[in-house]
């Protein structure tokens, strides 16, 4: 049986593709260190869409206690959150 190891780079590339397609923006519009809300890429419904994407793509439920700025405050934070859950 083989084990697939996911890297942060892969997660980030997949997330950026999702963001560009879903929210109709270009890669260069997204500052990965800043909040997607503060920079106007998404609104509160966008947070739901990202949570739903994560659940489906990475096959784990985003629980209520996960829904905070520490996990969703930027692309980097979202990537770290996914990586942490997937490798724990």
């Amino acid at each position, binding site marked *: 049986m083989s084990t697939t190891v996911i890297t942060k780079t892969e997660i980030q590339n997949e997330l950026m593709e*999702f963001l560009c397609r879903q929210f109709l923006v270009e890669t260069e519009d997204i500052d990965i260190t800043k909040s997607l809300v503060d920079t106007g890429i998404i609104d*509160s419904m*966008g*947070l*739901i*869409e990202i949570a739903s994407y994560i659940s489906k793509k990475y096959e784990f439920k985003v629980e*209520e206690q996960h829904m905070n700025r520490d996990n969703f405050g930027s692309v980097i934070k979202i990537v770290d959150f996914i990586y942490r859950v997937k490798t724990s």
Partner: protein
Amino acid sequence: MEANKRCIKCILSDKFPKIKFDEHGVCNFCNNELIYSTDAEQINKSVSEITKLFDDFRGKSDYDAIVCYSGGKDSTYTLKLAVEKYNLKVLSFTLDNGFISPVAFENINRVTNKLGIDHITYKPSYDFMKGLYRMSSLESLYNPSSLTRISANCNSCISIVNITALKYALEKEVPFILAGFTLGQIPANTIYYKNNYKFFEESRRPVIEKMKNKLGKNVSTYLEISDSLLSKSPNYPYNINLLCVEDITENEIIEQILPLGWKKPKDVDGCSTNCKLNAFNNFVHFKRYGYSPYELELSHLIRKKLLSREEAIEKLYDQPQDQINNAMLELKVDPAHILPFN
């Protein structure tokens, strides 16, 4: 609403964000190059999850669901589904924004009587609502990326609807809030979700602060929830959009709700069945962004074969000038002050 160019399959215009056309005049949305998740997968998943949620929570509170009821065709059908298909005990709620068609109010009375359900109408101060609409029309209150499916005025109004419904749900410990949004109005991955106020509050704060600066502390009354209410109610309700999992045309919806006494108002535009302000809202959106806020929703219905392209075009262009003029007069908005977004 005239556009230089529209997709030959749907009605998306050349001003719509990220639009591209192939050599045949078909847009990249129709060619499935955008919007990540496919509806079919998401809908199938949502149907089973929603059914399970209803089964888990039905009968545990005085009401199973708060239904946001505008009196329009979609929310009327949502109400019918909640009561008759899902067997929920509902409390319907209408936000009187000061611009609801009298026929829509008659519909609300007839339908709630016929279904035998409890109903609340909440009317914020008319002056506040007019100030909010004026601000939403003339200032860049929201980021343009959040307005691809909705006008700024509708967004402001629906924010009050959402917050008021959430307050009722928290006060009465109601596990569900139901609304009549269709796919196209909302993305497929938001058909149901837990309404985590604290999480969303952060993202809404910049807009709320702008509103408070202009409209004063009343903003808090209509668009925020007190810590005391939040601490009293440990569980957030689920928001569910039942209509998104139904494959039904507009004509079929109307057929279903006519026996409840529903009648089509004549004093609204082609895209609304309850609000006399909608034509003005669309006019503002077109002036600011160059496209109609209904293009995405109507195009989605065309792709799902629930609406013909001709019907969609007819709705899009049915924007009576007298309704736009009346709204501008009432809100004291000078059209010369509605500037294109840049």
